[in-house]
């Protein structure tokens, strides 16, 4: 047998295989907020996939149902906790988030555009970085741990008030070089297993990898409440887990590397609705 390319063999394989496709289902939260869970891929992804899909479509019916109503969504308990934190003064300035921003619903429209270029700081910032900047420079409070509970709760609150709005991160202008770094990371084959994000989430979404049904690895649903660890999981914690699973040395949550990767992965979901806190297994 001659050497053959992976693509050629893969083509042979897919034709003989029943692919576990994402379900045909629609998500409306609280019978009110319509969530776009699949839509045409943004222009910058046209040569990779035709459609972008939320991880919600790849979960079982019970898991999907938990996200249809806030009373059934365990992630909403953490949103309530964050609502309390939103209104609680902390730090040397005696201020709360509400002192500067009024109600948490004033944050509608913020989640969909993060990570975002910050002109004054001269860097791309994630929502977590912005939250900690407010805590440190405006409240005189201690920063929260990047992937800690307080931080995950607050990002869940900020996501929840933007549910239904389309993810729309900017990838050009001053953010472009960060985005390009993230794209390189997405296609880099890391670790002893030499697997890239794209190997699993672009080439094989819809396929089973052992007991897991691979999704596109989108982050429009973050933070996610996972049934596996019964808590909210932040974007960088998930990235870390996936990189670790390639038997690689991971990057640090909050590092410039993961910020770049987050911008890039977020951009792959431009057009999908914000749905955090979502429910996953």
């Amino acid at each position, binding site marked *: *047998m*001659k*050497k*053959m*390319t*992976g*693509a050629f*063999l893969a083509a*042979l*394989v897919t034709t*003989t*295989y029943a*692919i*576990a496709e994402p379900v045909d289902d629609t998500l409306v939260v609280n019978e009110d907020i319509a969530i776009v869970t699949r839509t045409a891929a943004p222009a910058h992804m046209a040569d990779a996939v035709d459609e972008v899909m939320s991880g919600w479509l790849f979960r079982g019916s019970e898991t999907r149902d938990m996200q249809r109503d806030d009373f059934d969504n365990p992630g909403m308990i953490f949103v309530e906790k964050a609502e309390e934190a939103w209104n609680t003064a902390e730090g040397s300035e005696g201020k709360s988030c509400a002192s500067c921003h009024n109600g948490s619903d004033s944050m509608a429209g913020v989640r969909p555009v993060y990570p975002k270029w910050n002109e004054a700081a001269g860097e791309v910032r994630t929502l977590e970085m912005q939250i900690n900047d407010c805590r440190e420079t405006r409240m005189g409070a201690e920063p929260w741990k990047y992937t800690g509970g307080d931080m995950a709760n607050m990002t869940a609150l900020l996501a929840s008030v933007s549910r239904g709005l389309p993810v729309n991160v900017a990838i050009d202008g001053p953010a472009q070089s960060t985005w390009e770094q993230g794209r390189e990371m997405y296609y*880099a*084959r*890391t*670790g*002893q*297993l*030499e*697997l890239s994000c794209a*190997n699993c989430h672009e*080439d*094989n979404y819809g*396929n*089973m*990898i*052992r*007991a897991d049904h691979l999704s596109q690895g989108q982050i429009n649903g973050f933070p996610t409440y996972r049934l596996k660890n019964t808590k909210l999981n932040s974007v960088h914690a998930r990235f*870390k887990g996936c*990189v*670790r*699973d*390639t*038997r*690689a*040395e*991971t990057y640090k949550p909050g590092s410039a590397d993961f910020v770049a990767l987050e911008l890039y992965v977020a951009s792959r979901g431009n057009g999908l609705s914000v749905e955090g806190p979502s429910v996953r297994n």
Partner: protein
Amino acid sequence: MRRTILASLTIAVSALGLEAAEIAPTAVTFEDGSVAQSLSGQPGNAAEGRKIVGSKKLGNCVACHAVSDLSDVPFHGEIGPMLDGAGDRWSEAELRGIVANAKMMFEGSMMPSFYKTEGFFRPGKAYTGKAADDTFGPLLSAQQIEDVVAYLATLKE
């Protein structure tokens, strides 16, 4: 006469440890993606190979491949082709090449290289997320590769 020479030669060779010479991961010769010689210098054990292919802690091949013969192991993946009939489709040398380093047979393959120790980007210490240290070795040992090859050779339609 001839026999005695041969017999004494064999003894001399095994005394030197050459008979069972193991080929290091960095010294494997691939020809069109195949590896002709046993990596451990020993034949493989198909029963051991069956365990390695199905075990999450060893080969974890079923993460990506379905194998009817392993229906006692739950959850087979569908990333790679089903391995039923692999022993008909490929020779022993080809199977050894595929398991040792599938990228030599299938360019750019997603299949990990099970007998390779160099050329990785950010290699880790197993699944800890930490950097690799001096305990770093191939995913499977030379003998484990041989066991897996022996098992795959039994998969006939």
